[in-house]
C-alpha cells in the first residue's frame, strides 16, 4: 500500500501514536504509512476522531504531553522526525514544514500587526535586515492576493475579514519557502464563497511554488476540488488511498463509499404539494443593533435584519440560507422571540408574536420550538437526558412522572434508546445529542419548529441521518419547519421553499427547485458556484439518474 515515490518529500512509515490510558481507544494512529511527492496536494479525509489532525501534529511533533509516538518513522529530508531532537525540530518547523490552522483568529496574535507577525518568521530564521524583511512581507502578502498589501501589513488581525486572515496565515506559512505545507481544515471556519477563493489560492500557490501540501479535511466536496491524491482515515488507520479520481469515482472500501454517498446531492428533491394555508407569516421584520455611545453620541448602528417578509405554508419546510453575518440566526431568534424585533409582524396561530408581551410568549411558547446549532452547548451538562426532554412539559404544568414517561417515548421517536434517559449529555455523541435537542423541542408538540443550523456541527454521515429523521418527523407529526443553514447542499435536501439572505435582507426566495435550478440573483449564483466539489457532485448526480 505504501509505495514511496522517488520524489517523496515526506514519507510516514508505520507510524503509531499512543493515547493516554482512559481514552476511547489505545492508539490515536496505528500503522499509518503514506508519502507525499514534492509536487502534489495530498488530502487526508476522515470524520472527527479519525486521527487526521493527530497525524499532522505528530509530523510536527506538536502532540499533547501525554500522547506519544510509539512506533514507525516520519522521514523528511533524510531525517526521522519521530526521533529528532527538540533543537532539530525547531529548525524544521516553519522553514522545512509549515502549518496553516483552522481558525486564523486564534492562530494570530491579536496584539501585533500582520506584517510584524509575518516578519517574525524572517527575524527568527534568517539574518535579513529590517528593510529587506519589510519588502519580503509585502511580496508575500501580494502573493496570497490580499487586496492592498501595504495596508494589510499594518493591520491588526481583528481588522481583517476571516478570508483575509486566512490569507495572512498562508503568507506566514509560505515565508521561508517550506518544502511541505500542512493545512489542517483551513477553510472549515470560512463562508462558502470565501472557502472557494482560498481553495483556489492554495491550488494556485502549489502550482507556482511547487510545494507539497498535506491538506486535512472532513469534506469530500473539498477533496474533489483540490486533491491530487487522497488518503481516507477511520479510527486512526488508513482504510484507502490512491489518486483522487480513482478514489472519488471508484471507491473500494465500504467506509469511503459511505462518506462519498453522504455528500449531499446538489439538486432539490422533487417538489411536494404545499398547503395553501400559511401557518407562519413574517412581514416586514427588522432588527437593528445599537452599540456603544453615551446619550446617543458616537453610537454604532448595525441593521441585522432588514424588512424581511416570508411565509411558511402548513407542513412545509422553509430554508433560510446565507453566510455568516447575513442575519439569518437573528431572524430565527426573532421568530421565537429570544430577540425582540424592532418592527414588523410575525403571525402564528392568530397571534402577532412580534408584539406579544414576554409573559404571553412564555405561555404560548409550546406552539413554536427551536433546535439549536451546537449539540454540545445547547444541553445543560448537569441534567440527565430524560430530564432535559421533560423540562418543557413540566414548566407548563405536566406532572413530573408523566413528563419523564413521555420523554422516554420521545426518545424512541427520535431514534434513541429509551433507557438512555438516565445518562448525562457528555455521555452521548454529537448526533445523539442533537436528537435529544430535537426530542426536547418536540416534547411541547409544537406546530412550527425553528431549526438553527441543526446539522452544521455534525460529521457528514451523521448529518445525513439527522436530516432523514427530520424529514420523517415532518411527515409523521405534520410539522412545519423553518430551517436555517449556511450550507446550500443541506438546504437542497430538505427544504420545499428557500430564501437567500445577504446583509440582513432576503435577496431571492422561491421553491427550492427553482432557486437551485435557475438562480436569478447574482449572489445566489455566486453561492451555488462556490460549493466545493460542485462539478463532481453534479457529475455523480447525473450518473445516478
Amino acid at each position, binding site marked *: 500500500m505504501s509505495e514511496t515515490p522517488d520524489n517523496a518529500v515526506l514519507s510516514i512509515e508505520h507510524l503509531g501514536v499512543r493515547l493516554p490510558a482512559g481514552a476511547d481507544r489505545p492508539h490515536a494512529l496505528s500503522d499509518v504509512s503514506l508519502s507525499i511527492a514534492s509536487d502534489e496536494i495530498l488530502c487526508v479525509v476522515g470524520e472527527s476522531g479519525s486521527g487526521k489532525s493527530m497525524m499532522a501534529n505528530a509530523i510536527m511533533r506538536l502532540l*499533547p*504531553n*501525554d500522547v506519544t509516538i510509539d512506533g514507525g518513522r516520519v522521514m523528511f529530508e533524510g531525517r526521522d522526525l519521530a526521533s529528532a531532537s527538540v533543537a532539530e525540530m525547531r529548525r524544521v518547523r516553519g522553514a522545512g514544514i509549515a502549518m496553516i490552522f483552522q481558525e486564523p483568529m486564534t492562530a494570530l496574535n491579536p496584539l501585533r500587526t500582520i506584517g510584524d507577525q509575518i516578519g517574525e518568521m524572517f527575524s527568527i530564521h534568517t539574518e535579513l535586515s529590517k528593510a529587506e524583511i519589510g519588502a519580503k512581507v509585502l511580496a508575500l502578502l501580494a502573493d496570497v492576493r490580499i487586496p492592498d498589501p501595504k495596508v494589510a501589513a499594518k493591520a491588526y488581525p481583528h481588522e481583517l475579514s476571516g478570508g483575509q486572515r486566512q490569507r495572512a496565515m498562508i503568507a506566514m506559512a509560505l515565508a521561508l519557502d517550506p518544502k511541505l505545507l500542512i493545512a489542517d481544515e483551513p477553510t472549515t471556519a470560512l463562508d462558502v464563497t470565501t472557502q472557494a477563493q482560498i481553495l483556489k489560492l492554495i491550488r494556485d500557490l502549489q502550482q507556482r511554488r511547487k510545494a507539497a501540501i498535506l491538506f486535512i479535511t472532513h469534506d469530500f466536496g473539498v477533496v474533489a476540488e483540490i486533491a491530487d491524491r487522497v488518503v481516507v482515515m477511520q479510527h486512526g488507520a488508513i482504510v484507502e488511498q490512491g489518486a483522487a479520481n480513482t478514489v472519488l469515482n471508484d471507491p473500494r472500501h465500504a467506509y469511503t463509499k459511505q462518506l462519498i454517498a453522504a455528500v449531499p446531492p446538489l439538486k432539490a428533491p422533487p417538489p411536494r404539494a404545499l398547503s395553501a394555508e400559511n401557518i407562519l407569516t413574517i412581514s416586514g421584520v427588522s432588527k437593528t443593533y445599537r452599540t456603544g455611545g453615551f446619550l446617543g453620541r458616537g453610537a454604532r448602528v448595525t441593521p441585522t435584519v432588514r424588512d424581511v417578509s416570508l411565509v411558511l405554508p402548513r407542513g412545509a419546510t422553509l430554508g433560510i440560507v446565507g453566510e455568516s453575518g447575513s442575519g439569518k440566526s437573528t431572524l430565527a*431568534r426573532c421568530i*421565537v422571540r*429570544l430577540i425582540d424585533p424592532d418592527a414588523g409582524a410575525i403571525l402564528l396561530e392568530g397571534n402577532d408574536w412580534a408584539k406579544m408581551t414576554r409573559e404571553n410568549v*412564555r*405561555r404560548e*411558547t*409550546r406552539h413554536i*420550538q*427551536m433546535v*439549536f*446549532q*451546537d449539540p454540545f*452547548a*445547547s*444541553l*445543560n*451538562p*448537569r441534567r440527565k437526558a430524560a430530564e432535559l426532554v421533560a*423540562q*418543557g412539559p413540566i*414548566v*407548563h404544568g405536566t406532572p413530573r412522572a408523566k413528563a419523564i414517561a413521555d420523554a422516554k417515548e420521545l426518545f424512541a421517536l427520535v431514534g434513541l434508546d429509551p433507557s438512555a434517559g438516565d445518562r448525562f449529555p457528555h455521555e452521548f455523541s454529537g448526533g445523539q445529542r442533537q436528537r435529544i*435537542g430535537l426530542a*426536547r*423541542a418536540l416534547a*411541547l408538540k409544537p406546530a412550527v419548529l425553528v431549526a438553527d443550523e441543526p446539522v452544521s456541527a455534525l460529521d457528514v454521515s451523521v448529518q445525513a441521518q439527522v436530516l432523514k429523521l427530520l424529514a420523517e418527523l415532518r411527515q409523521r407529526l405534520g410539522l412545519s419547519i423553518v430551517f436555517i443553514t449556511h450550507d446550500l447542499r443541506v438546504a437542497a435536501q430538505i427544504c420545499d421553499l428557500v430564501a437567500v439572505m445577504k446583509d440582513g435582507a432576503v435577496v431571492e426566495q422561491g421553491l427550492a427547485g427553482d432557486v437551485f435550478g435557475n438562480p436569478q440573483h447574482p449572489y445566489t449564483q455566486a453561492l451555488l458556484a462556490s460549493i466545493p466539489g460542485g462539478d463532481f457532485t453534479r457529475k455523480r448526480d447525473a450518473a445516478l439518474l
Partner: protein
Amino acid sequence: MDAVKRYFRSPAAVAGLVLLLIVIAMAISAGFFYPRDPLALAGRPLIWPFSNPRFLLGTDNSGRDIAAQILYGARISLLIGGVATAIAILIGIFVGAFAGYYGGWVDTVLMRVTEAFQTLPNFVLLLVLVAVFGSTLTTVTIAVGVVSWPAPARLTRAEFLSLRNREFVQAGRTLGMRDIQLILGEILPNALPPVIVYASVVMAVAILLESALAFLRLSDPNVASWGNLIGLGRDVLRVQWYVSAIPGIAILMTVLAVSLVGQGLNDALNPRLKSR
C-alpha cells in the same frame, strides 16, 4: 466521581485535607481532653511548653492552659470561618446572579454598590462594624461575612454573564421557563464550581480577619480563640514568645489547609486548567 479521583491524585491537596481533618478533630475532641473551661485558671502563669507534663504547651500570662485554648480555639476559628464564608457566598451569589443575569440598570446599581464595598479596605470596614455593633461572637462572625461578599459577587456575575447567552439557557427560555427557573435551575449549577473554589479563599481570609481583630483585642474576649491568645501574648512577646507563636502556627496550618483544599478542588473541578 472523576473529580474525587483527580482530587486524591494531588499530594498537596491530600496533605491539605489531612491538615484540615486534624483541625476538625481538634475542635471535636476539645471537650474530651479538656472538660474544664479553657479560660479558667489552671496553674502558674507562663510555664514554658514541654516543661510540665500537666501543661503540654505551657500556660499563658494569666496561668491558663494553652493546649486547652488551642483545641477550643479550633472550634471558634472553624465556626467563624464556616459561617462567615456561608454568609459572604450567599450574598455574593444573590447579588452576582441578579447583576449578571439581568444586566442593564440592575447590573449597574448592584455593581456600583459592590464597588463601594470594595473600595473600602475590608479590615477598616470590619473595625467600624465591630465598633458600632459590639464584639460578641455573633456580631464578629456576621461582620466578617458582610465585608467579604464583593469578590464572590463579582465572580458569580462573571460566570452568569458568560453563561446567560449559552444555547442551553436560550433553549430553556424557548421552553417557557421563568427567569427564576433559569437562574436557579439552569445557570447556577454551572456557575457554582469556581465560586465553591473561591469559598476556600474567603474562609482563609475570614479566619485571618478574626485573628487580626482579636490581636487588637476587639474580638469577643469571652471565648477561647487563637486570635485572643495571640493578643494576650503580645504583652510578653519578647521573652515568652511561645504564647503568641503557638496559636500563630495553628492559624498558619489552618489557613494553609483551607488554601490547599481550595487549590485541590480547583484542579479537580477544572481538570483542563491543570494540565496546562
